[in-house]
């Protein structure tokens, strides 16, 4: 199997790593870089829990090869807070009780960050559309949507 030297930025830090061709971005983040905030679940693009931002764009990291992110900029949930200061979306999730088991939370927060950057004042429909690729099995969608709408007012 081929091996590839890649260079990427994750949460502002540059990494030079060598990966085997069949390594996914999700494995690279969790197993090689120890960034376990990104969750592994269905591994087939259905649940969206492995969502990270690649050059600011929400991406299901189980369906991306690590070698494909050579030269790209990746943001995971670990990259949002500045020092001890949580991002407005993270604070809104706490305020609205949008976290139950927490397994889907990193994905929802990253998708919301990307949405609000692109569209600072989304409608409820636009919020639903933007997070449509992510499943919450505690079914706390109402609180999640409320938190994202609230964060948009704060930004």
């Amino acid at each position, binding site marked *: *199997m*081929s091996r*590839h030297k890649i260079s990427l930025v994750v949460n502002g830090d540059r990494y030079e790593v060598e990966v*085997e*061709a*069949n390594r*996914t971005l999700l*494995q690279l983040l969790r197993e090689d870089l120890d960034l376990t905030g990104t969750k592994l679940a269905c*591994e*087939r*693009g*259905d649940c*969206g829990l492995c*969502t990270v931002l690649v050059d600011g*764009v*929400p*991406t*299901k990291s*189980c*369906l*991306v*090869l690590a*070698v*494909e992110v050579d030269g790209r900029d990746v943001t995971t949930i670990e990259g949002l807070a500045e020092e001890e200061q949580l991002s407005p979306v993270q604070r809104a999730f706490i305020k609205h009780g949008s976290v139950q088991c927490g397994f889907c939370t990193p994905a929802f927060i990253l*998708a919301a960050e990307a949405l609000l950057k692109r569209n600072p004042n989304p409608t409820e429909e636009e919020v639903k*559309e*933007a997070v*449509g*690729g*992510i499943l919450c099995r505690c079914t706390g969608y109402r609180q999640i949507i409320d938190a994202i709408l609230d964060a948009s007012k704060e930004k």
Partner: protein
Amino acid sequence: MPLPKFDYIKPRTTEELSVALAEHGADAKLLAGGTDLLVLMRDRLVRPKYVIDIKGIEDLHKLSWDERRGLTIGAAVTLNELIASKVIRERFSVLWKAVDTLADPTIRNRATLVGNICNASPAADTAPALLVLDAEVEVVSAKGRRVIPIREFFKGVKRTSLERGEFVKVVRIPNPPDGARGDYLKWGRTRGEDLAVVGVAALVANSGKKIMRIALSSVAPTPLRIFEVEKIPKGGGSVAEQISKAVSIVREKISPITDVRGGKEYRIHMAGVLTKRTLEGLLEAN
């Protein structure tokens, strides 16, 4: 579960891609968005020795339109790039609508239109739209190039008319006839991400030249254009009569199967319902 082992190749030009495919064709799979390929590989349904990533080829990222030639969509253009296109939204509304129903927005950041047709699922959402728009598929190999009309592209479940060593470079779509309007209605089990139980694309014009074209997904081994409805406008009659004729022809010409998403009888029923809704929306609004 880890993906099976393979070698990764990233050509920079279409010539390099042709050479790689000529050499490894039988053992190679092309990678664009990866949203189908990586799932198939993880399930061990395909086991390529070589995965050839086409995203390094600048030519394949082109999305362009002009008044004379219509729309050209490169093999690496993502579905969200199509959704962002004003010209597609305004002039190719049936395609825009189909792309907007495919999977979910995060998948659409990676998935491509060309990948959707090359995967050749009977449920491919973009296929009925391409069928009613008379799209053409430009195919390249080390031996040269050829153009395949989309109506000859799908050969069976997950099978296309692509031969070993060939790849799709672009899909071209001529401008729809003047006055034509189109729509795609998809029936899924949920409003969110799901494959179609039935999908119906229609393109109609009822001023000037009269046109009625209908194509469906998830009702046969391949996406299906129902050519028999196309003479309906010539036969005259009220809009309601024409729609009712189209519904009975569609119900007769499809051959859906029963699977986890729906029974055969339910699919035939819903194909009729969606055909009626799509045509009513397009013809009665006028």
